[in-house]
């Protein structure tokens, strides 16, 4: 707990002490081997996460330094994007990064296909999926480069009222 309190002291994110305590408790609960960072295995031990087709994308987004593990700071930063105090921009950014697998700032045809496939599994034919993907990119791509930039993404999604939907109680 000394470690956690020093973390909370140095963090400059918009969170109350109470929230950080709860997050700390949750982090420790998830950290099965007490290593101080969460790996995919620790997350996959939660039955409801195993059920979620996008769980690996979410973990990947949390893992900002890309070392395959999520330490406490990454955990707090990740969860805070779903806080009730988060702004629309943050949440749009998160959603964008779900699609942008290689983190290059663009959603390519292949990446969109990958994510859609994860959500659908083997229940739809690849051809039908590819059709849906092509249609979406056609509709969204304004500058004709064959992929969707963050700006184009915001144009499609930004007007939807999703801010309330992307909120999790901490």
């Amino acid at each position, binding site marked *: 707990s000394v470690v956690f309190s020093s973390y909370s002291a140095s963090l400059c994110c918009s969170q109350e002490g109470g929230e950080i305590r709860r997050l700390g408790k949750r982090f420790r609960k998830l950290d099965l081997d007490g290593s101080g960072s969460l790996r995919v295995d620790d997350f996959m031990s*939660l039955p409801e996460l195993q059920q979620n087709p996008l769980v690996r994308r979410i973990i990947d987004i949390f893992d900002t330094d890309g070392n395959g593990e999520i330490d406490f700071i990454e955990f707090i930063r990740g969860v805070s994007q779903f806080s009730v105090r988060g702004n629309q921009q943050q949440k749009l950014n998160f959603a964008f990064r779900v699609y942008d697998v290689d983190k290059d700032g663009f959603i390519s045809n292949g990446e969109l296909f990958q994510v859609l496939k994860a959500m*659908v599994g083997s*229940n739809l034919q690849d051809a039908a999926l590819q059709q849906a993907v092509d249609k979406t990119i056609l509709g969204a791509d304004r500058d004709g480069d064959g992929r969707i930039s963050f700006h184009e993404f915001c144009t499609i999604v930004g007007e939807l009222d999703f801010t309330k939907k992307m909120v999790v109680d901490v």
Partner: protein
Amino acid sequence: MELFFNPFDNLLCILLGISFTVWFTLLLVFIIVPAIFGVSFGIRRLYMKTLLKIFEVRARCLSISIIAREPTSLEEEIKEIRRSGSNKDLDSASEFEMSDIFYFARRGVESIMDDEVTKRFSAEELESWNLLTRSNNNFHYISLRLTVLWWLGLLIRYGILLPLRVTLAFTGVSLLVFLTSLIGLLQNGRMKNVLSEKVHLMCYRICVRALTAIITYHDSENKPKNGGICVANHTSPIDVIILASDGCYAMVGQIHGGLMGVIQRSMVKACPHIWFERSEVKDRHLVAKRLSNHVQDKSKLPILIFPEGTCINNTSVMMFKKGSFDIGATVYPVAIKYDPRFGDAFWNSSKFGMVSYLLRMMSSWAIVCSVWYLPPMSREEGEDAVQFANRVKSAIARKGGLVDLLWDGGLKRDKVKDTFKEEQQKLYSKMLVGTQEDRSRS
């Protein structure tokens, strides 16, 4: 040089003496004697009704809201997000929308923060407040009247109820130890069994009153008989007292040290309980053998077992361990459901030790619960122990109004099969195909 007696001192002594006698007599007459004979004056039920009236009044005057999210289905939520766009041109919309991931992303982070399973292991949150701060984590200062009421409640609980209950508990436990040791001196035979039964029942009843437990037993015609195994869902160590005050059981457990050990050792003198040494607990075959030996002897009492293996917070029933279902005896399922309005009976063993738990219990308002005796079940042809265990578990969950969860109560965090993920994928695919069909029809 005569002794100077302050007349007030004298008076004080007399008053103290009288009040002590009165107190003790009341205790004896209203609590201990009925306990011995198994009679009830109905005082506890009256108390319960009064408390309920007070809580209802409170609940109407104020509302402490705990953020409750209405559960929405996958389809509902995804469609809601899609529809929320202002200038959506439906004709050019594809079956798949970029916003569809919001649902999964949110569900994912939600599960990371607080999953259904882990929630079962912490106390269920109450909808309205029962004047115990321990059951409301979001307590803020609301009104002067409420605070005064709370302080009053605190005074009553800790000043009057707690000492009374501790006295009773002390009486009950010491009587148990003393009397069972006495009975142990008798020869084995009918007399011993009858006496032991009476003694056990009496002491458990005193303990029940020590907790101010108001128990309603349903379907007593299904009570467990000799040579059977009684199986129940587990919320707290009090479950034992609750069940054992209505019938005689052979307990199963590990031998502890300290006070618990003393109680265990004296109990076993009066009638055959099954206590294991710590080393023997690991040996499954030994355990199974002892249990089946006991069960085959029809003169011995039914065994009481809690197959979940751990305390669950009484909102659900977790996976039953199959050991007790493998022995081939008749199983008598029992469902225990606590009423959370009066006090949270759940023992969170990672948070509280046994003593602090008992103190919490004794300083709650009351413990109100219902016990349902279900009709006996046996293993059917072609059914293995696990299936039998699950069948019993569903019956218990249904009767007690608890959620029948598949997850393992030991929460060893075993890998759950992929089928759950595949279900979600199927649901989403169905939705996509559905919208396609809708459009082709119009």
